[in-house]
């Protein structure tokens, strides 16, 4: 019973965090065809900004988180303007630039803070006693915040004028021109939203896990696996796939004694299996459309 409850909580928590990361990755890929390998690096940067805000500047955690989300959005838009925009039609160049950016961020933080693990105090303290298990409030808070973020994104994409424009560009760039949408503008905004989501994931995770310059690598594998499993570019697919992977990893950690070293292999294994059996993923290839 205790294992089961722990499993569900850990799975939801980890899956939810990965869902936010994967959604951001799927969003910018679907809209601008940017395979942003620096996506989880933004998440690392956001966590570090919170750490700096709390430990060096002395801000309260909530304020540091807010500042970090805003700064990360800004940073991503600057990166887009400086690097991605020039080569946006050249998909391979875009991907290489994003890898370089991720490395750059990693090295900067390694230089300044070294390869140490840094902790951040939780926003909410204490825990709930359910008799069999204790659930800490920080985990519950993280879970709730993940759900609210996903819900907010869904509302943004389905109900607002901006959301409709973003989806139009994702589905047919050429026709988006014809209804008067400035595509480059939408790319930039989407980049900001995508990095903002990564920063939210960072803000959720920073108090639970540790902050470290290499913390972007493992989630990147998970995010790539989730996007492949969900279907490239599909946002709904990314959310569901991330939750599946979150639970799969939790299962491995809890059910195999001393098996936590295997968790990294789970998403990779899923990615390979999906690519072999069903390359379009859960929600890929929706309609067969005649193009020009």
């Amino acid at each position, binding site marked *: 019973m205790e294992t089961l409850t722990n499993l569900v909580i850990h799975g939801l928590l980890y899956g939810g965090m990965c869902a936010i990361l994967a959604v951001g990755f799927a969003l910018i890929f679907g809209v601008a065809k940017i395979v942003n390998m620096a996506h989880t690096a933004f998440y690392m940067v956001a966590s570090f900004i919170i750490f700096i805000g709390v430990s060096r500047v002395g801000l309260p955690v909530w304020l540091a988180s807010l500042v970090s989300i805003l700064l990360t959005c800004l940073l991503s838009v600057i990166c887009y303007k400086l690097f991605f925009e*020039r*080569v946006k*039609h*050249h998909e391979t*160049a875009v991907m290489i630039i994003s890898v370089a950016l991720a490395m750059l961020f990693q090295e900067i933080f390694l230089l300044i803070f070294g390869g140490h693990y840094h902790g951040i105090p939780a926003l909410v303290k204490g825990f709930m006693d359910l008799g069999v298990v204790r659930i800490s409030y920080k985990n519950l808070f993280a879970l709730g915040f993940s759900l609210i973020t996903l819900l907010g994104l869904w509302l943004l994409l389905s109900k607002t*004028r901006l959301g*409709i*424009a973003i*989806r*139009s560009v994702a*589905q*047919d760039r*050429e*026709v*988006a*021109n*014809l*209804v*008067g*949408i*400035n*595509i480059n503008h939408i790319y930039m905004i989407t980049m900001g939203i995508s990095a903002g989501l990564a920063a939210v994931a960072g803000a959720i995770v920073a108090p639970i896990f540790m902050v470290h310059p290499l913390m972007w690598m493992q989630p990147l594998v998970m995010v790539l696996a989730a996007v492949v499993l969900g279907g490239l570019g599909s946002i709904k697919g990314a959310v569901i796939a991330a939750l599946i992977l979150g639970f799969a990893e939790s299962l491995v950690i809890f059910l195999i004694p001393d098996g936590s070293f295997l968790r990294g292999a789970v998403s990779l294994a899923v990615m390979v299996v999906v690519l072999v059996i069903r390359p379009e993923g859960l929600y890929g290839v*929706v*309609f067969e*459309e*005649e193009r*020009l």
Partner: protein
Amino acid sequence: MYLEVRNLTVLYDRAMVLNNVSLNVEKGEAVGLVGPNGAGKSTMMRAITGLVQWEKDSLKGTTKGKITIEGSVVFNGEELINVPAPRIAQRGLILCPERGRPFREMTVKENLEAGAYLVKDKRVIKDSLDKVYYLFPRLKERIDQVSGTLSGGERTMLSIGRALMSQAKLLLIDEPSTGLAPLVKQDLFTRIKDVHGLGITILLVEQDISFAFDLAPRNYVLSQGKMITQGSPEELLADESIRRTYPGL
């Protein structure tokens, strides 16, 4: 002159798709542009609405070849050849692409909302929406249907509806009859006449000349990238050159 295209030349690499073509449309007119497959009709529409320019920009930095575009497109007294496509749409010069091309994962309603992207006034949006539903009651029935699952005729209707939502002043319709059953075609052309009846200027591109001649009192004939002739349907049908362009007429 409402729309005046002068000496438009488009090259894809070294292949000349449009060779020095000119065309003009008066306000309130319905003009046809006919010609066989591969004549360059769609390229001409894309060049007028800025898509060729956009495609040219999107090839920058890649190894996929080069597009050259020369000439002048004047709409409402304003030169548009170097204006980006979204700005051209903003001026009311709207293209319904071939096969409609609705945003296929979005519902009919969302497609129409996307059409109204540049319209700020809620009342104008509401009025346009009523107009679209009045012209195309079928779209109202399918309001929440995902547009990728619509039939060919419905997609074209949706595309025209989307253009009306964008407050089209001059509507370019590219081959609305492609792939449609005769009865559906007939119905669609009645609707296009209704749209013209609303006071919207129309430039209709067609392969099926019977429909174009039915709608437009003045027609251009394009073949192999060149404007061969123009005139009323009667003149054109009597003309030898169009018989040569369309064997079997």
